[in-house]
């Protein structure tokens, strides 16, 4: 049947069934609904310009959200500033079996992610694979198995031993996968807790390496983390409706106090004593988390 003949046929049929009211109303509404939608678009596009001025400077704190950087980026920045590899600094994988609450699992998932990043940026592929396996185990406990299932991460890591750029790309892919998973499963509230663990561990590694071999650049980078801690605290406060994270927030606020001495300015840096105090508090907090 040609298109024209089919159209005629359809029109005639349509006339006949127009008597069947319900059907006709349903059909018309559907087309009208779609048509109106398209027409309204232009009207609102024009309205954007006018409204922008009206709402200028009314952005409230509760309408803000707080971006948290990837632990890999922080580790890479630390590495470029002198974060060397010290083998026994990272959290023992055996401890993973002792984390039985969702809270400790999330925090230590972050801790192990940071340890994996530390191994990867230092080309410690075998250790990275062990951390990956530990992360997979923890993710199963947290019902987040899909994060690792689709990526073939172990194989990719093994296939890229010694290829630094490829290894960091794999780690970045894991971050994408994790972010997607949390978003798709409505688990956005989990992200800041995992990040808290990762941030504390990266700071711990930075502090320990700096204690072993003090380095001005690294101290500057440790100081700079005040902007991240500020965002982390705000993000945690936003998800703390049931006061589940009171203790973590209180502990991080103690750490944050160390940055109060900083003056406004791009080159602000903590002094030696202040760095030592910050390091002691970070180490204490990190050990509290891993020892459950």
């Amino acid at each position, binding site marked *: 049947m040609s298109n024209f003949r089919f159209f005629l046929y*359809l029109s005639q*049929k349509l006339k006949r069934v127009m008597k069947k009211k319900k*059907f006709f109303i*349903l*059909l018309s509404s*559907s*087309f009208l*609904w*779609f048509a109106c*939608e398209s027409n*309204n*678009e232009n009207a*609102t*596009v024009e*309205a*954007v*310009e006018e*409204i*922008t001025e*009206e*709402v200028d*400077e*009314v*952005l409230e704190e509760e*309408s*803000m*959200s*707080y*971006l*948290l*950087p*990837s632990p*890999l*980026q922080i580790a*890479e*920045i630390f590495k*470029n500033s002198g974060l060397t590899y010290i083998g026994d600094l990272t959290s023992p994988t055996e401890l993973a079996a002792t984390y039985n609450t969702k809270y400790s699992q999330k925090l230590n998932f972050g801790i192990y992610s940071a340890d994996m990043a530390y191994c990867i940026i230092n080309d410690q592929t075998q250790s990275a694979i062990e951390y990956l396996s530990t992360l997979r185990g923890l993710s199963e406990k947290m019902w987040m198995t899909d994060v690792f299932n689709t990526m073939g991460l172990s194989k990719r890591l093994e296939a890229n031993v010694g290829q630094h750029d490829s290894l*960091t*790309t794999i780690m*970045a*892919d894991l*971050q*994408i996968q994790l*972010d*997607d998973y949390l*978003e*798709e499963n409505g688990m956005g509230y989990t992200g800041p807790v995992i990040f808290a663990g990762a941030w504390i561990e990266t700071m711990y590694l930075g502090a320990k390496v700096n204690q072993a071999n003090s380095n001005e650049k690294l101290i500057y*980078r440790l100081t*700079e983390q005040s*902007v*991240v801690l*500020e*965002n982390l605290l*705000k993000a945690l406060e936003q998800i703390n409706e049931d006061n589940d994270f009171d203790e973590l927030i209180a502990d991080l606020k103690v750490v944050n106090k160390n940055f109060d001495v900083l003056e406004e300015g*791009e080159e602000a840096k903590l002094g030696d004593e202040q760095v030592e105090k910050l390091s002691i508090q970070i180490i204490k907090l990190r050990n509290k988390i891993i020892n459950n």
Partner: protein
Amino acid sequence: MKKVIFYSTILVLLLTTTALKLEEVQCVAADLKNELMPVLKPEYKYDSSKITRVLYKKEAFQSGIEVPLFMGEKYRFVFNTAGLPKDIEINIFDKKPSNKMKNALFTLSNVREAGKNVYTFEPEKSKKMYVVYTIPATEEEGLKGCVVFLLGYKL
């Protein structure tokens, strides 16, 4: 048989219009995010992302993201507006949105092109920045969508 063909055709038409309507307002965040990945690679590595879900209201309002950047590093901001049924305005400020001394480093209305939904911005200087979405008022009820923001870094 003719009846079957006829009713099937009508059903297909109905489903198509409904699907078109749904597609218009649906926000598949992962797909929108995936569209942005090639805009980062190979120079920039994925850092983090934020999917902002927008429920249009009768009054215009704003929603913001505080973005910490590290000194001396290079960043690329990438936005995908394809998940929005109606345009919004995107601004990036160098200071808090409430600060009178803030400067707009990027304004989407200055760079918007017809049919384009991916936009990028690379700050000259890296310091804390504030992304502000201005969502226009609408009389349409239940109108929603999302905007995807991706941050890439280069060390």
